[in-house]
């Protein structure tokens, strides 16, 4: 039987699947439930300095090819969120804290506080495509990515993953900027900026008009981004975007990811998707002569 244990930036995980930020992770109870269902780790909802209501509905649109969302970073704020992280941690969950802020100073403050709650690592949401004034501008500026990553690195001791946007011309240059800032790894990709229009009503469906696309439609985009980052930068990668089954996960590993994140697939396969993906990976590895996850990482690079 293949060994599914994974190692990324010094983190040891029982398997290479993680809950992607934004899904079932606003509360400790739900994070613990997902971890108990088989995820190797759970990434929290992106948490900021203050409570935030997010956007009005409609905030999600189900599509044949995936899911469009513009929830707009709702979260209870970093102070109240301590209760949620501690609840999940006390239940034994491996938790990675996702944070956002309006500038490097705010990112560093929120990340520092998040780290004090006992998370294994922090992930920087540098690229939310649907919260005004937060993320979108940062996502377009490699210097901001570098500056924020550096500030956070100074405020925490746990590994730092900078989550990158695919909505740029050259994502590898942003991974390079994160590396210059001292990132321990990058997460790729955030959602793809998108839109849904109701022909009947002649208007965008999302209240926010624009949103982020996830799910099967973006898997080829995510694979390409992970592959490009791997070619250009020597930095561990958490691969995310449209992973629904073991084969999808293996493709991401071969593109260069050390572990993967799953979110939208919960819609189709429920929270058991993590254990399903692990079993499918293990079966494929056994059938194809791979004993360890690490042997797959980057295998598609010549």
């Amino acid at each position, binding site marked *: 039987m293949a060994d599914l244990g994974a190692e990324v930036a010094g983190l040891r995980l029982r398997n290479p699947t993680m809950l992607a930020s*934004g*899904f*079932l*992770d*606003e*509360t400790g*109870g*739900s994070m*613990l*439930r997902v971890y108990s269902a088989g995820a190797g780790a759970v990434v929290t*909802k992106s948490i900021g300095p203050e*409570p*935030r*209501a*997010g956007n*009005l*509905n*409609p*905030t*999600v*649109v*189900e*599509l*044949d090819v*995936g*899911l469009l*969302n513009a*929830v707009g970073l*709702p*979260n*209870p*704020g970093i102070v*109240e969120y301590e*209760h949620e992280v501690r609840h999940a941690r006390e239940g034994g969950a491996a938790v990675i804290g996702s944070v956002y802020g309006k500038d490097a100073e705010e990112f560093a403050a929120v990340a520092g506080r998040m780290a004090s709650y006992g998370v294994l690592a922090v992930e920087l949401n540098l690229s939310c495509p649907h919260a005004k004034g937060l993320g979108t501008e940062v996502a377009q500026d490699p210097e901001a990515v570098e500056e924020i990553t550096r500030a956070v690195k100074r405020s925490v001791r746990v590994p730092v993953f900078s989550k990158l946007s695919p909505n740029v011309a050259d994502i590898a240059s942003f991974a390079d900027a994160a590396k210059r800032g001292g990132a321990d790894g990058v997460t790729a990709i955030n959602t793809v900026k998108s839109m849904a229009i*109701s022909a*009947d*009503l002649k*208007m965008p*469906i999302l*209240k926010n008009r624009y949103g982020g696309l996830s*799910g099967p439609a973006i898997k080829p985009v995510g694979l390409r981004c992970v592959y490009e980052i791997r070619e250009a930068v020597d930095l561990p990668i958490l691969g995310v975007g449209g992973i629904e089954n073991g084969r999808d996960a293996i493709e991401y590993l071969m593109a260069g990811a050390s572990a993967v994140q799953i*979110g*939208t697939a*919960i*819609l*189709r396969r429920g929270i058991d998707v993590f254990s399903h993906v692990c079993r499918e990976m293990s079966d494929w590895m056994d059938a194809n002569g791979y004993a360890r996850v690490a042997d797959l990482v980057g295998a598609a690079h010549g």
Partner: protein
Amino acid sequence: MGSRLTQIVPLEDVVVEDPKTKTYRFRADMHPRPGQFLMLWIPRADEVPMAYSYLENPMGVTVREYGDATRALAAESKRGYRVGVRGPFGNSFAVEGRRALAVAGGVGIASVIAAIQAYADAGIAIETAFGARTKQELTFLDRAKACGPVHVATDDGSAGYRGLVTDVAAKLLHDGTFDMVLTCGPEVMMKKVVDTANAAGVHVQASLERYMKCGIGICDACVLDDRLVCTDGPIFWGDELAKSHDFGRWRRDISGRRVKA
């Protein structure tokens, strides 16, 4: 994912149930079961979860004005006005037992009326304890009466017993012949009904309400303990609610903060 895409439908009928409550009827390609809900998009305003008060085309939702979205709907609503609907979502009331009691509070009747009819259709004896502030807020009284005896309670005594419907329900459950309770209404009311039924050893199903964004089990806004009202609910059984830390005590606000229910 393709089966639950947003459908744009014109309102076929708008029925004024009382000055603050209307029923909106429309035709959509959906096959809901009693107790399930849909996400109702009021263009330019908001999208909100609503229980089906009529299951078959023209299906319907019954909405009491209580916030910006529902007020916007009430202001716009006339025949032909187009709304978006997606669903059906969530689980449904189990239709089982030999003698059932439905306990409804106010517009909570909208979630249980289809179940009351399903019980009657299945040949299960069903009675209803129905509470409202005043006589004119007893929406669907005639539909409930067509299914079995109805015991009315009003705050002002304008119809039936003057006082709480939970007192009426407790008295009915005390006689020991009911083996199933269905309930929907204010959570403080449902908490009493669930506690009473649990103490009497009677199965009870409660339809819960929480703030929702996605409706499809991903955003974590509608959490009850570690359950999601949108996909694990909205119907919860009494034994699960008896163990719940949140039921009757805590809910989450729009930003996910825990606040008193």
